[in-house]
């Protein structure tokens, strides 16, 4: 049992680092962005707690998008990859038992969704979603196919870089985060209005996964490493000093 209890208030969110609500080149933000000032308060118990997800909710194939929607004996089509990394907090500690959910287009850039308008083919063996829960050190991994870039209605010819969407649940509702992972070297990254909401090259880099040849499986899968950082606590409670420092 770790002596460090995950309680205590969260470090304020850095609004100079996180994207603004109103980002006109990403057109949908224009009518969906609040305009009044946000109401700032220190976190309370309502934000410092969150639900607990046990590893027992996971099925064997939940973190294998190559197989979790495939017919028996078949598998999803496309470049096979492993995505792995750690969920950390701003203090650099691994976040154990974080629920990580992910979704993506197939190898051709097509989502399995009624509203999807891109003509690329559906892969009958690819659903496009998976989930896992981080280990004690905050690490996670899953297997999937590398998604393709796809066009989307914004400018008259905007394409998303290949990406995987992530939803992460830490230990406090204040940590709740949704983001996207991009792939090293994708020429669409610098053209995309959604990537463009990020305020610095450093922020873009923070969402760009590198090819990780150390984790590849020879003759099977390449690997990409993607760490994610959730908000950290301002203070850490110790068992023998419950009020903290």
């Amino acid at each position: 049992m770790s002596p460090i209890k995950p309680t205590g208030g969260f470090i304020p969110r850095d609004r100079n680092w996180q994207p603004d609500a109103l980002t006109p080149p990403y057109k949908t933000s224009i009518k969906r962005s609040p305009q009044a000032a946000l109401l700032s308060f220190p976190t309370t118990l309502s934000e410092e707690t969150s639900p607990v997800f046990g590893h027992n909710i996971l099925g064997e194939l939940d973190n294998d998008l190559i197989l979790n929607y495939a017919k028996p004996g078949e598998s999803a089509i496309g470049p096979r990859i492993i995505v792995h990394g750690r969920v950390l907090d701003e203090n650099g500690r691994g976040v154990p038992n974080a629920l990580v959910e992910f979704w993506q287009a197939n190898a051709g850039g097509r989502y399995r969704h009624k509203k999807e308008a891109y003509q690329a083919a559906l892969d009958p063996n690819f659903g496009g979603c998976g989930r896992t829960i981080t280990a004690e050190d905050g690490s996670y991994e899953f297997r999937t196919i590398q998604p393709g870039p796809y066009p989307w209605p914004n400018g008259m010819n905007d394409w998303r870089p290949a990406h995987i969407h992530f939803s992460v649940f830490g230990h406090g509702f204040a940590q709740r985060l949704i983001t996207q992972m991009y792939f090293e070297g994708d020429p669409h990254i610098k053209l995309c209005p959604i990537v463009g909401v990020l305020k610095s090259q450093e922020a873009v880099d923070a969402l760009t996964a590198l090819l990780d040849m150390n984790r590849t499986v020879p003759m099977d899968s390449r690997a990409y490493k993607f760490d994610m950082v959730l908000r950290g606590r301002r203070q850490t409670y110790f068992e023998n000093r419950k009020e903290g420092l």
Partner: protein
Amino acid sequence: MTQRLDYLKESPSQTAGPYVHIGCTPNFTGIEIYGGDLGTSMKTGPVKGEEITIKGVVYDGTGTPLRDAMVEIWQPDAAGLFASANETRGQADPNFTGWGRSPGDMNTGEFTFETVKPGAVPFPDGRMQAPHITVWIVARGINLGLHTRIYFADEADANAADPILTRIEHQNRIPTLLAEKSADGSYRFDIHLQGPKETIFFDI
């Protein structure tokens, strides 16, 4: 060169996009997996306290309902205890998860939560807060998930003493945080992303 503090930066947020339901409520989109969607039910058995229903719609700045949003709520049980690993004040109702997730209705965008009226929870300084539910909204066009709170219009005394509500500069916007009882007995809590009825969102 000075030393460095060496804190990490929080991962930058990106929009949940139009297909957040594939990832977070796949069964809702017709992808049958996991044996069901997480957060569909907040009750795992008979619960303590007053059972309530909360309904609402997320509207954009033109008054159009969002049909691609995901709304999550998080709250304590009727006694004010959270079903959380870091709840240190007692044992929450074992049949109540406190957490709900809704993709909204496919056609109308209306979200519905079957839950219990939350108990009061203290503010960090020890004063009691009015009963409330924490809400988190993501959707296409929202670059960073929006936090707000549901308070209850029928808790006027508690609301009048709430440490957060009383500090809001524009008191005329407080009704945007109040769930009102509807004719059918459910509570109504609509969320307006923008415009004259813009909901108060929290930087919390």
